[in-house]
């Protein structure tokens, strides 16, 4: 019995010889809940050996702007999927507009994320940079917002225009958030 099973020794396929795969994320939103999807997917992609570029544009600039990246917020407004804790009952939209509600919702979401040992945005960006992700800032957004490279996370490679982005994303899978 053992001799036949010995012959079945399986070595996992880690895809070392697979063709290089590339994913480009476009981050266009600066809400806390819209910052995380790209970060989490990029982390997964990098740990699977996939090359990752992230292009930040419009409100997504807040994710790499050192003045704002720690202060991203989550609003209940416009989010009809907000439920009472532990229930499927919807929270009335009007409540989201009450003073202090955005701060409260942001605090709750940050706590839930921290409970899963997922880092806050600045630490997450540094981790992705360490894993080999490349970050790019959108030229038009930078001009519109009056920013310079000094305002941004050191891990940002460069400020590039859309033509350069289209060029560098050649052959990549592109995910717009």
């Amino acid at each position, binding site marked *: 019995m053992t001799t036949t*099973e010995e012959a079945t020794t399986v070595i996992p396929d880690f895809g070392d010889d697979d063709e290089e795969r590339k994913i480009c994320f476009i981050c266009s939103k600066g809400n806390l809940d819209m910052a995380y999807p790209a970060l989490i997917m990029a982390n997964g992609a990098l740990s699977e050996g996939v090359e990752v570029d992230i292009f930040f544009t419009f409100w997504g600039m807040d994710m790499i702007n050192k003045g704002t990246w720690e202060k991203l917020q989550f609003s209940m407004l416009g989010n009809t999927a907000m439920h009472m804790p532990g229930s499927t009952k919807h929270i009335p939209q009007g409540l989201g507009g009450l003073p202090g509600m955005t701060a409260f919702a942001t605090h709750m979401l940050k706590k839930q994320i921290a409970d899963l040992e997922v880092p806050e945005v600045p630490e997450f960006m540094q981790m992705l940079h360490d894993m080999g992700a490349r970050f790019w800032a959108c030229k038009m957004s930078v001009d519109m917002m009056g920013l310079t490279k000094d305002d941004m996370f050191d891990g940002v490679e460069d400020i590039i225009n859309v033509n350069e982005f289209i060029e560098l994303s050649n052959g990549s899978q592109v995910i717009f958030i």
Partner: protein
Amino acid sequence: MSVATIAGHEVQIDEEGFMTVYDEWDEEVGTALAGQIGIEMTEAHWKVIRFLRSDFAEQGQTATIRRVATVGGVPTKELFTLFPKKPAKKMAYVAGLPKPAGCV
């Protein structure tokens, strides 16, 4: 589920080849598993593998890259050098543990 012979030890493996029984692993087995995927073990590799083993014994799940970096104290960049391209899965494989279940 099948049985494989790794470094003279009979061990249970799943369909992908990951070991499934924590106590069937020892460092000799780890060295052989690493060799099968082209990794030559050094002290730096063992630091990671020993952390994964002890963390699994305490937590009941395989540490993610972030946990190895923040709790195990091995920088993320180094993990990509030691276990190229897919460090999370390769570390788990060499340590005789399941692939990490967490996302981050």
